[in-house]
Every structure is written in C-alpha cells, then in structure tokens.
C-alpha cells in the first residue's frame, strides 16, 4: 500500500527536467522482455517511474534496481507513451548520486584520472602478440589533453562537490 500523504510530490522535478515520463500509463510493456526483470530483486522500470511520479523519496533513494539495467534500451523502443524508460533509469541513478555520494560509481575516478576503466594503455604486450606494435592514441599518451579533459569535468557541480574522490 502506498501512503500518499507521506510523499514528496514535487520530487520528480529533481529527478528529471523532461516531461515524457508523466505520460506513463503503467502498462508494463517495459518490463515484459526486460532481461533485468529476471534479476532478484527484479528491475521493474514501470514501478520506478511510479515512484518518481508519486514522490516516494526514501523508497527510491534506497532502491538498487536501477543499477541492474542491461542498457539494451528495448523498453525505450516498445513504450507506447514514449516515456523513455531507459533514460529515466539513468535519471534516477543520477538523482541517487546527487543525494547520496556513496552511490557514485568507483569507475568514475578511473575515467577522470586516465580516461578509461579498462587499462587500455597497459595492454601493449597483448596487442603486440596479435601483431599490433603501435600504441593506441588514448588520452594518456597526451598529458596536455588529459589536463584539459579533467579541467572540463571539474566544471561539473557534482564532480567539484566530491573533488576529494577525484584527487582534488
């Protein structure tokens, strides 16, 4: 049972500036065929959209299921109301990160520091084994570009606010 009186009805404005998700008619086609709807607990994107619309703040903050999305975007294709459920899932992740820094994926730090999660620059031996002698021109090969890239990212509010994570 959803206790409507306790909800933050304007919370949706913090989650998404888009209008599309308000048109959700709760049909559930986004869930049908969603691989992550088989996870335990299941990712039920329709329910997440309801939580946003009804302002179930605490519930949504503690919900881990947006992070099990496989990112196939099939839900986006089949939604008859153009709710853009996949992008709503990402918007919910962003909202969670903004309200709870422990949600920030650790991979962000790698991306900030070297442009990548996979250590592309350290794979030279394997690359040479398959006949590729030249180094890949990733950003770590260009320290001046890396500095500019980091400067660009440091303009982002949430990165600035958590700059201790990114090396200050």
């Amino acid at each position, binding site marked *: 049972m959803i206790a409507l009186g306790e909800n933050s009805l304007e919370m949706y404005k913090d989650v998404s500036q888009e209008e599309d998700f308000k048109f959700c008619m709760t049909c559930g086609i986004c869930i049908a065929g969603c691989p992550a709807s088989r996870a335990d607990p299941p990712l039920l994107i329709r329910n997440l959209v309801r939580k946003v619309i009804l302002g179930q703040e605490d519930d949504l903050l503690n919900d881990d299921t947006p992070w099990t999305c496989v990112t196939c975007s099939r839900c986006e*294709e089949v939604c008859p109301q153009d709710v853009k459920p996949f992008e709503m899932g990402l918007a919910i*992740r*962003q909202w969670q990160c903004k309200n709870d820094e422990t949600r920030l994926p650790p991979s962000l730090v790698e991306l900030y520091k070297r442009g*990548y999660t996979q250590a592309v620059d350290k794979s030279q031996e394997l690359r040479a084994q398959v006949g*590729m002698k030249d180094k890949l021109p990733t950003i770590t090969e260009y320290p001046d570009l890396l500095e500019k*890239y980091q400067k660009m990212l440091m303009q982002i509010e949430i990165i600035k606010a958590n700059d201790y994570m990114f090396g200050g």
Partner: protein
Amino acid sequence: MKYGLFPGCNMPAIRPDVEHAIRLTMPALGAELVDLEGYVCCPAFGTFPSMDEDAKLAVNAWNLSIGEEKGVDLMVECGSCFSSLKMGHEHICHSEAKMKRVAELLEVTGKKYEGKNTVKHITDVLYHDVGLDRIRKAAKDRYKGVHMVVQYPCHTLYPSAQVGFEETPGKPRILADLVEALGATVDHYGCEYQCCGGAGGFHRAAHEPAMEFARSKLDSIRNETKAEAIVVSCITCLMFLDKVQKDLNEADGSEKYAIPVFDYNQLLALSMGFPRDQVASIAFVDRSDFISKYTG
C-alpha cells in the same frame, strides 16, 4: 570512405585480435580508418551517464569533436560505445540548450563540437557503405554451407529512432545478410532477438539470472539449429557469450556448451587470408578446429 576508428576499451585491452581484424579488413574493403588522438571512454552507461547528464554529453562531445576536426564520422564496433555516442550525438544535435551547454563545458579545452559528423556502427558501414557485393568478392565463399547463427547487438537496434539503421528495426536482418555474404547459411532460432545479457549492471548485480538468461539462448541455438558458430558484432556480446559457456560448463560439470563465438570482422579477416594468430587468437571456447576446417 574514411572513418575515425573508435576502439572503445574492451576491444583494445582484452580482445585486440578483434581490433586487428577490423584494422586489416576495413581498409582492404575500401574503408580507410584514421585514429582518434586523445579519445576517452565513450562514456559507458555505468559511469558519467549514471552521475550527471552534462558530464555525459561533454565527454560524448569530446570524442565526437576529434572526428569532426578530421572531417570523419566515428566507426564503432562495441554496442555500448556506439549507443552512448550516438544517443549523445542525437541529444546534442536536437537540443539548442544541450548544444549550448556542451559548448560552455568544452570551452576550457579549446575544443568545439558543432554536430557536423555522426557515429556509425561497423555493421552499418559494412552493409550500407562497403556493400554486400564487395564483401562477397573478398570472402570467396570460404564458409559455403556452414551453418551459423547471429547475435544482434541490442544497442544498435534500440531506440531505433535515435540509433537505428535497419529498415525494419523490430525485425533486424543486416547482420544475417552480412553473414550470408560470407557464403554461410544463417539458421534462425526462438531466442534470436533476445539480447546477450552481458552489458550494463545485470550480470554483475545478478550473475545467476544473467547466466540462466544466456543459457536459454544457448539452449535455443543448440536445440533448434545446426550452428557451428555464433556471429556477433559487439565486443560485449563476444566476450559474454564466449565466457558464459565456460562458466555454465563449470557450474554444470559438463562440456555441453562449446559453440565458437566470432566477431563478424574476424570471420571476414580469416576468409580474406589474414593470419589467425593476429585476427582470432583470444577465446575461452576453442575455435581452432573451426578455423582450421574452413580457412586453413
């Protein structure tokens, strides 16, 4: 035909044999490839796109701008990279506010992005730009009569309005047509249009369900087809469908799952005579019998 090769991270770091197959085959088919100096992670959906929309679009624009400066479209094999970059491109180019915000963020870097280029998946390039005729001639029917199945990269299909290049997005056929241009026979099966399940947070957050999800596809292939290989064109599909067979065998204590998985350009490279140790040497499921039998 000239493209900026966006290799992403998994392909160059973990499966460089696929990258080499692409670097050898595409120019031989008339598609010149140039490198994108200073490129970074697309960004992957689990990173900046899960934290901040502006950061996501700025990083997309960073990568796109490297191609724009050289006057080339980006060519991508990895489904996730393709989807992140293409959806980013669409968002930036269809919103004045987003274009303006991206320009503000890029300003400190001295770079700019004006939306003059786009992003193409490698199967789009192969099918629409290179063309089946040229592929048929190059592949010389090495796989004539060999049964294969395809795994469509979900990220190239949906949402079709933003990323699609199939005539009928709900009923894709481009990868099957490309495989048939190699002379092979494409078998069809029940779970053909189900994604591999290997991308995003699914198989990390829910490993068992993701394994069972993949099992349903593999069983469908085993029971319904005569496939000797699974053909993909996405590094995640390749790595996941290969590794999950080993994981399932270990969990079952059997050797039941042993269908070789190839990226399309690996099959192409082998049929064009490029050396196997350079273009198809890294895999969990053994591919040597298949390679010896059909391409020597």
